[in-house]
């Protein structure tokens, strides 16, 4: 099949950037979306042009590195899918496909489709952990029983891949789904309870410092999340945050 790609090109953080059009032909429907871009890039290099820069690594939907905004949707058409798992059979012959980077003030563009998601790391560094040293001299793992229901819900929250699709999809560029997933994972487990109040305060504070917007409960984040992180986590984080705000600091 043949497609017309309109791709955001931006030569470095200070460049203004623009959309550029590339026709691609003989696209095999069995190709993944990123393989289609690989083929385009090989062609561009052969023509002496600069290839399109994009982030990617595992190409099996788990590392969270790929990050394309395709036809107005984070990770393109399809539910619960990352860009690397998207295949060309999801597109029609003759279609025009618009490809942009994640757009958010807190995710500055490095080049073309590559953005800096360091803000996510810094939020985690502010409190996304249980303060236990790695000596191995902890108690036996089975000395901390966790009800299966809590363990399963903590696991579901912990499956967040940190790709940033939630931020890219949100009209406010809010990071609430991402932050709430980590807050929830620990809030649901006995190991995380000790520092729960401190954690939610610190992580929310850092989130605000990074320049992410507020949550207005639109739910676009949940709809576009490739691993199905639930809005329930945002509700839980709000509850945790409210509780922490009303109690005196440690």
């Amino acid at each position, binding site marked *: 099949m043949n497609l017309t790609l309109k791709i955001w090109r931006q030569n470095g953080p200070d460049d203004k950037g623009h959309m550029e059009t590339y026709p691609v032909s003989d696209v095999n429907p069995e190709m993944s979306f990123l393989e289609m871009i690989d083929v385009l890039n090989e062609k561009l290099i052969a023509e002496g042009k600069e290839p399109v820069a994009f982030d990617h690594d595992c190409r099996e939907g*788990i590392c969270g590195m790929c990050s394309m905004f395709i036809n107005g949707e984070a990770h393109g058409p399809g539910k619960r899918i990352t860009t690397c*798992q998207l295949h060309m059979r999801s597109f029609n012959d003759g279609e025009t496909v618009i490809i942009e980077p994640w757009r958010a003030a807190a995710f500055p563009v490095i080049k073309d489709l590559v953005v800096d998601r360091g803000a996510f*790391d810094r939020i985690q560094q502010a409190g996304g952990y249980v303060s236990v040293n790695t000596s191995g001299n902890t108690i036996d793992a089975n000395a901390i029983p966790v009800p299966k229901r809590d363990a399963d819900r903590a696991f579901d929250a912990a499956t967040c891949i940190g790709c940033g699709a939630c931020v890219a999809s949100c009209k406010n560029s809010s990071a609430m789904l991402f932050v709430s997933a980590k807050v929830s994972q620990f809030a649901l487990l006995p190991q995380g309870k000790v520092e729960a109040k401190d954690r939610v305060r610190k992580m929310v504070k850092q989130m605000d410092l990074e320049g992410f917007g507020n949550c207005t409960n639109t739910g676009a984040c949940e709809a576009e999340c490739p691993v199905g992180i639930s809005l329930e986590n945002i509700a839980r984080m709000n509850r945790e945050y409210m509780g922490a705000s009303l109690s005196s600091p440690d």
Partner: protein
Amino acid sequence: MKLDARIPAGPLEKKWSSHKSNIRLVSPANKRNIDIVVIGTGLAGSSAAASLAEMGYRVKAFCFQDSPRRAHSIAAQGGINAAKNYQNDGDSTYRLFYDTIKGGDYRSREANVYRLAEVSANIIDQCVAQGVPFARDYGGLLDNRSFGGVQVSRTFYAKGQTGQQLLLGAYSALNRQIGKGNVKMYNRHEMMDIVVEDGKARGIIARNLATGEIERHGAHAVLLASGGYGNVFFLSTNAMGSNGSAAWKAHRRGALMANPCFTQIHPTCIPQSGEYQSKLTLMSESLRNDGRIWVPKNKKDAEAIRAGQMKPTDIKEEDRDYYLERRYPSFGNLVPRDVASRAAKERCDEGYGVNATGQAVYLDFSSAIERYGKTEANQMGLENPSREKIIELGEKVVEAKYGNLFEMYQKIKDVNPYKSPMMIYPAVHYTMGGIWVDYNLMTNIPGLYALGEANFSDHGANRLGASALMQGLADGYFVAPYTVGDYLADEIRTGDIDINSDAFVQTEKDVVERIDKLINNKGTKTVDHYHRALGKIMWDKCGMARNAEGLKEAIVEIQALREEFWKEVNVPGRKDMYNPELDKAGRVADFLELGELMCLDALTREESCGGHFREEHQTEEGEAMRDDKNFAFASCWKYTGEPSKAELIKEELTFENVELKTRSYK
């Protein structure tokens, strides 16, 4: 050159504890003045960086990805082994040790493997304390499952995302230290070379991939936790960025590479669909518990399937060849990875392969669906349930067990694996070989360490399922943090490393010259063109089956390809900004040397063991023939300027606690 693995004296089960009690320590006040560089932030790197920072060292950690959380440990699916014996099925440290030695076909070091088994239980305690959400049963306690090659249930898991959860646990420990300022994290940075001064590792030259800047980082110790080199084959289950460059740079600076030809080819991966294919996706080993592997019994049927004239479901039960069950009746579909992979290749080479390429076999769940459906129907008290009802019930059971894997398969192949068998084919997955290390995980360059998949010590010639995660965390949390002190105790008087020394200046110059050469070459072919060509040579001649003639040809072909690469490669863009093609070019240039050494290693190892199968050394039935008399050693290669002129140094492997036996799964 004489190799000393520095294995502590004393009985096997006492070695680690007495060694730990006797190695030298660095006082807290001195730790504050010692710098350690960690390359890679997978399970081994993240856990080591976090642990060392907690102990008080000044740590710098580097990853080429945009965040330490993206390292490829994240993609591990199945689980992590630990000798906890929670299931009361007779597991013990010794059993885990024994299974690992045997699974590795007796080509690993006893003392290291025993220590791995010994600390395994602590890993689970540590991870749970960090809030890693392992699977639990209804009593709230941890659940286990079984993996290939063992007779106990010792695998801890978090659905099909165990690697993700363990890595995020280590990442959280790392984040805590970054937040405290004890670790300085360098994302989007690649190690370009090791600086060796007066025979000791003194730091690294790194490149900021976002800006192209070249940086010098001095350190009293450098830890390589940079993973394996499976991407030398171009197509593998590794991430696109996974590379062997850190290890290869260390090798070029004098570190020995051990057993580089020991590669694990995983039997159950989604087959290649075309030339444009960029990577292969694994389907977890756990699927072989319930899936049956087959090809058509008649060549005509296989041809019809390849031509698209027949569907697998059209082939009658009696016309299917369940070749693993036929050849290995006692282990059936659950033979170890190396055996299953070779058997698939044998059938496809004989012309029985399916898929348009002829390079695929079926993994079929219909028997399991029917079996589970009948059990469910019985439990529900249904009398004479219809076939449809049985299938419906059975599919639900299979979904609960493997749902996410089936979903992944369907996303990639657009085929519903509940209704039609999966197509699978072996793919490169893991490299057992790596940088030679002693018992302290130190390479032969003082101050340079190798952890996790980057080293060679624990898995011999074949790794068992769910053991890679165990080794990464064992090395990073519990081994290296203790053993580096033994070396650093002598470094407390060194003071800050001078990054303006001749060694730093010269190493940086070497790095810059190479980058300039690549970027100014302006040849006619892309980096991927050469990577693909190398991958084909490696797969055809140094893959699942090897022979002397093919390996000799491969060495010549790789040399020619490398020469052409340096003349004809075209790297677009600039060196002073984000340029992934340039990053890739450097990695492929290293693979073009490493591949040659792998072929040399495979050529000199005149036996078949584990993942290394030499066609000249097989029984009449096509089974591997090991040669313990002549090859019970680790092949350690010293760089001499040309990859295939490397000097071989042998580390004899002595087995005092296990008896060497032929592995049989018949």
